[in-house]
């Protein structure tokens, strides 16, 4: 099986190189058979990487420890799910998995555009295949996932216990899908630059892809945060770790793009900027991969380190040089006909929102690479910790939230004083009112009060948008409220889906603010039968239970949770000792409510004195983040739902365009 896998990646590499060359040559020479051969190569590339993934999966499932990858990342006692997840648990496998996702995206793009964008498609195919060839080249020439050992170990060294968690099965795939699918808008941007067709067409074609990749980047980040929260056992979910930052930066530029693209559609402005954002987002995903794989920066993700760094840097350099050269060449065609008419306009708000997104991305970038730069320049590695990121990004985040409230309701072109008053009176009153209430209730922290106030303002603007839109439909069409609301959303998925995402962002923001400012933390030893008090909760230590399986030994503490003298239930924080890589892990136990999370960690337990040492955190409103994640999912689905016009135009797209009238 390893031979088949090896053959598939070698062949996949050759096919990708051929496909890219044939597509480019075919486009330049206007030779259809070459272009078609390129398209076939794209499909063959997908099939071959698919075969390689299946081969590796088969080796894992067969527990063939003669294969180095299988021996390193699985064992005979590893449960089935994690054996499957071991596909992306190690560096080689994750690169193959990455290539496979790219190949699937490529095949979908080819299918979607069989009869569309035919001029651009050769360039799109070439870009995607070159990217695919780059990833496969690493596997073919440098780290072969199908490498065999000179001997067969009787047992594998198992998957890192930190990765043996249910999030492992969904966090990496979502993040990879997010990362990899940014290739699609990038490929279309390059194709637009190459063909000189720089209108709205490429943007419209890739709109859903951009949203798709943004969505999976968001999910990947949220899942990653949730994973860190339940696995790492320090009571938090985000540490500004370089690899977290690596996933956060493309999300920021991608969010910026989703907003600025609306300005191009409405006002024919910011064309160059949009190109730059698409290029930057893709480049940042490659940079992120570089950060994870190179080991230049120490990180909690060090389980995927390797010596591949320089190759990623070269590829990154090539991407930037080629795309920026193309952009520079096409600058005259990208000139905007319109200009900003007033700072009090939606255009200006969106522009500012973009500057903030990119500003945050830049500070994150700076903080991430600073240790490396300082080492190069001064020979000393200076690490900037979370305080740097928090201090710089907190005001930027607040400003962004504020704009999120302003953007949707301010007028295009220029807003007059009277229109501002009319649109903003209610949200501003609600915002200030919330701030006052927070102050009265004893939120003594300045940041918290401002943040709650701004969140309420942003939420109010979104709700008034729904309300006003619904009222207009009710009076104009005489519809019942629910009908009016659903038709309102149905008529403009993108706008109202976007608003739902805004609501989700407010929820996540509130979760972040409350949990980071009002967190309570204590570490204490307690005897069996005794209790600990924390922020209104009482936690009683009821004893220790030990369990043992061939795979792992578990020590479980039983904690009874009380609030106001009433027992709510039990939580069971654990210490686990994995047997293969002899490593202890912490399994936290959380009593979660809308108001707060009681987060318990078992430190040590001394059987003689019957004293357990616990770390207990009270994280207010953290579950709002996860609920916000669900709301975001919902909003994005509304955004991506095809409109009536799109569905009908898809259906009629097989009719030659010339024979149609305007639909």
């Amino acid at each position, binding site marked *: *099986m390893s*031979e*088949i896998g090896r*053959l*598939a990646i070698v*062949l996949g590499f050759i*096919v990708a190189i051929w*496909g890219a060359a044939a597509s480019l040559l075919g486009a330049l020479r206007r030779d*259809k*058979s*070459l*272009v*078609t*051969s390129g398209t*076939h*190569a794209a499909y*063959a590339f997908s*099939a*071959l990487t698919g*075969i390689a993934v299946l081969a590796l999966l088969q080796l894992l499932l067969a527990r063939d420890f003669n294969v180095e990858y299988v021996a390193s990342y699985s064992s005979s006692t590893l449960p089935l799910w994690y054996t499957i997840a071991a596909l992306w648990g190690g560096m080689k496998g994750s690169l193959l998995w990455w290539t496979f996702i790219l190949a699937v995206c490529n095949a979908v793009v080819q299918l979607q555009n069989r*009869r*569309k*964008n*035919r*001029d*651009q498609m050769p360039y799109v195919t070439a870009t995607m295949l070159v990217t695919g060839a780059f990833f496969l080249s690493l596997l073919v020439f440098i780290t072969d996932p199908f490498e065999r050992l000179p001997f067969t170990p009787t047992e594998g060294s198992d998957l890192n216990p930190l990765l043996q968690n249910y999030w492992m099965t969904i966090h990496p795939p979502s993040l990879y899908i997010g990362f990899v699918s940014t290739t699609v808008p990038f490929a279309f941007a390059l194709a637009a630059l190459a063909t000189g*067709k720089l*209108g*709205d*067409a490429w*943007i*419209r*074609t890739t709109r859903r892809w951009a949203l798709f990749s943004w969505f999976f980047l968001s999910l990947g980040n949220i899942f990653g945060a949730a994973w860190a929260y339940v696995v790492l056992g320090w009571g938090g979910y985000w540490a500004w770790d370089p690899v977290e930052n690596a996933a956060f930066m493309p999300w920021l530029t991608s969010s910026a793009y989703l907003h600025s693209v609306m300005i191009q*559609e*409405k*006002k*024919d402005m910011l064309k160059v900027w949009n190109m730059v954002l698409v290029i930057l987002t893709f480049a940042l995903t490659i940079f992120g991969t570089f950060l994870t794989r190179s080991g230049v920066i120490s990180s909690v993700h060090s389980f995927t380190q390797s010596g591949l760094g320089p190759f990623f840097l070269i590829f990154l350099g090539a991407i930037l040089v080629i795309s920026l050269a193309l952009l520079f060449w096409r600058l005259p065609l990208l000139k905007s006909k*319109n200009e900003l008419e007033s700072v009090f306009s939606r255009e200006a708000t969106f522009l500012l929102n973009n500057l903030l997104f990119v500003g945050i991305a830049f500070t994150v970038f700076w903080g991430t690479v600073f240790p490396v730069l300082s080492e190069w320049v001064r020979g000393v590695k200076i690490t900037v910790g979370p305080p740097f990121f928090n201090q710089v990004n907190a005001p930027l985040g607040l400003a962004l939230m504020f704009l999120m409230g302003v953007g949707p*309701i301010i*007028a*295009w*072109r*220029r807003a*007059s004083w009277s*229109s501002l008053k*009319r649109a903003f009176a209610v949200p501003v009153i609600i915002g200030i009112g919330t701030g006052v209430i927070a102050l009265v209730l004893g939120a003594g922290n300045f940041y918290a009060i401002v943040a709650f106030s701004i969140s309420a303002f942003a939420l109010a603007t979104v709700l008034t948008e729904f309300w*006003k*839109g619904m009222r*207009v439909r009710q009076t104009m069409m005489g519809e019942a409220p629910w009908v009016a609301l659903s038709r309102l959303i149905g*008529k*403009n998925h993108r*706008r109202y889906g976007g608003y739902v995402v805004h609501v989700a962002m407010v929820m996540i923001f509130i979760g972040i603010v409350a949990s980071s400012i009002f967190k309570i933390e204590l570490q204490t030893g307690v005897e069996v039968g005794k209790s600990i008090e924390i922020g209104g909760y009482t936690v009683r230590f009821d004893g220790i239970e030990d369990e043992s399986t061939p795979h792992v030994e578990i020590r479980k503490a039983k904690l009874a949770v009380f609030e106001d003298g009433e027992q709510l239930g039990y939580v069971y924080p654990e210490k686990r000792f994995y047997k293969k890589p002899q490593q202890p892990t912490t399994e936290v136990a959380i009593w979660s409510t809308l108001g707060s999370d009681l987060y318990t960690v078992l430190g040590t337990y001394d059987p003689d004195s019957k004293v357990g040492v616990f770390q207990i955190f009270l994280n207010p409103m953290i579950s709002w983040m996860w609920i916000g994640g669900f709301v975001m999912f919902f909003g994005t689905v509304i955004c991506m739902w095809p409109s*009536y*016009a799109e569905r009908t*135009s898809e259906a009629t797209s097989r009719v030659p*365009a*010339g024979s149609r*009238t*305007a*639909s």
Partner: protein
Amino acid sequence: MGVTLIGLIIVAASAIYVAWPLLSGAEADDASEISEASALEKEKDSALDAIREIDFDLRVGKISEEDHAALRADLEKRALKALAELEEGATEPGLQAVEGGGEGPKSDGAAGFCPSCGNQFKKGASFCAGCGEKLPKSARGGTRRRA
């Protein structure tokens, strides 16, 4: 043996599939024409979507009459330009005029686009022929409301 056979099949299948278009001298539709048309379709759809949005913004009161008219004129110009190019070859004096001089269509053709479904409607129409929705007065004024 089995592995060698599967390997050979994979190699042969890939090679034949990829090389087939070159060997058979692939037929294909006129790529550039289709591409051009789909690009223009998108260009048009994009402008129509934008028109629909600002029309609604006007009704909600988020935008002044004057700004609405100016924005709409701009977007209509873009939509009509894409339409004119899309239907190139057909006789469209009115649409050409839009592109050239910025005056409204002079023929008895389109007066504007339905704010609800984006269908083109004729001057003087009160209801959209596409979706049957009542056309608001501001939309009926169509391209003549140019700033």
